[in-house]
């Protein structure tokens, strides 16, 4: 290793991008109020704070079980109904099945949903339906449309058109094509996406819970707000176990189905 490996002239073509990113980040740091001093103090404070949260309040543990179960049920129902909705949108968004104008409308709606943060949807639905599990389940279901709808539509479009054409040539109508030609081919991907989305939805249901959907997220937020930090740590540990367990479960089942990771 010599100085040649890091000679400045080798890196000339990276100069402008690096400069641009540096300038932008300096501006952004100003906007965000980044300060090293605050960070230093903050790290010490959060270290002390986390130490003070120990030990967890095991007395509160039994009270956490029902909210935790509620969160799982909310995530489950959100995924179940969301898969149904995503399936509908995906069928309408695939060019092998739907007319171009339907396809474009459906793709537009999927894209629109993708760019809308789930919490915004929840705030709207809470304003419409009031607090409780219903708006949270609807939010998670709508949230599925953006990701799963797009992935499924792509999977449907990748189906070999020969299959569909051969069915049509022997007189199958649209419904029959979907049930006997499309459905069996996309089922493995559908299940795999749904399992992955369940993982995401469980994490989301924790956040949504804090805004009024109930469940374990609400317990965590409430414990923080009432300064019951030992209790908060218990809730945090319960969430940790839940997230870890669902991740393992969904990974294991997905391995069995053997469809690629939806993120890739």
């Amino acid at each position, binding site marked *: 290793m010599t100085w040649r490996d890091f000679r400045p002239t080798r890196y000339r073509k990276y100069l402008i991008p690096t400069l641009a990113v540096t300038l932008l980040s300096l501006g952004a740091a100003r906007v965000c109020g980044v300060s090293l001093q605050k960070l230093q103090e903050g790290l010490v404070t959060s270290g002390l704070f986390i130490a003070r949260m120990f030990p967890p309040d095991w007395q509160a543990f039994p009270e956490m079980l029902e909210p935790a179960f509620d969160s799982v049920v909310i995530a489950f129902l959100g995924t179940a109904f969301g898969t149904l909705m995503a399936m509908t949108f995906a069928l309408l968004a695939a060019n092998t099945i739907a007319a171009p104008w339907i396809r474009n409308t459906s793709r537009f709606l999927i894209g629109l949903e993708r760019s809308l943060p789930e919490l915004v949807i929840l705030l709207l639905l809470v304003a419409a339906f009031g607090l409780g599990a219903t708006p949270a389940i609807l939010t998670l279901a709508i949230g599925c449309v953006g990701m799963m709808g797009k992935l499924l539509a792509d999977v449907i479009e990748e189906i070999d058109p020969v299959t569909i054409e051969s069915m049509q040539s022997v007189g199958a109508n649209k419904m029959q094509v979907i049930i006997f030609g499309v459905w069996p081919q996309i089922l493995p991907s559908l299940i795999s996406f749904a399992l992955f989305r369940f993982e995401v939805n469980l994490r989301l249901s924790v956040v949504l819970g804090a805004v009024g959907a109930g469940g374990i997220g609400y317990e965590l*937020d409430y414990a923080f707000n009432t300064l019951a930090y030992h209790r908060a740590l218990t809730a*945090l540990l319960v969430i940790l176990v839940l997230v870890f367990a669902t991740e393992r479960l969904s990974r294991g089942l997905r391995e069995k189905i053997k469809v690629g990771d939806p993120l890739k």
Partner: protein
Amino acid sequence: MSLANFILPSKKYRQRASVSGLVILSVALACAYIGFNPLGFFTEFHFVQDLLGEMLPPNFDALWSSSSIGFSFLQTVSMAFLGTLYGGLMAIILSFLAAANTMPFRVIRAFARSLLSLLRVIPALGIVLIYVIAVGIGTFAGLLTVVTITVATFGKLFTEMIENAEAPPSEAIYSVGATQVQVIRYSIIPQMLPTFIANLLFSFDLNMRMAVWLGVFGGGGIGFQLYLAMRVLHYKDATAYIFFIIVLVILVEKVSDFLRKKVLKASA
């Protein structure tokens, strides 16, 4: 021939029927438990109609009537940008420390690995609540959360990618007498960097959406303003904010898509 055999002739069909039956049954039970009526969205649709009546038309004046709104949008974008940048840099550094083929010392490797796994399971809500206590309510707390989540999401992924790097180039360089550092510099970094940058650009718009909801829990930015507007029932202002959030997220997505294609093309 029993009736069941007549209706469901093959074993495969019986298996499928029982699985779908089980799923439907558990959905029904879960609905009953939590008190969710799936048709409620349609039968109670007048609530949505009422809300839409109050939200429309959007009050776009709210966007420029006070300068704090524009600044809030800027804060949210800055949070996402800096979070991706700092978080990405930290994830890259940590992944080099955690990968078996770049870090010879087992102790450091084990430490980096356990740090990454620990971060991965802590829920984002817990992280933001702790940071708000540590550095106070505001954009800085939100930024630190985005950084932490980005490290958590990408640290493990990057580690795996480094460990799966093509071995032949490294071996070739090593065989002509390169040191360990030179192998990393001339084989592993050139292989990995484009993919890393492409991944991080992809997370830019994920972080953008996260920056919005962090605002509700004290992370500052437009999420906070939106939450406030909804809380004081200024629905027409809220519609304008939501509209602008969508425009911004789509814009960020397009920009990061463009840059990602450029990076991948330059490396190919």
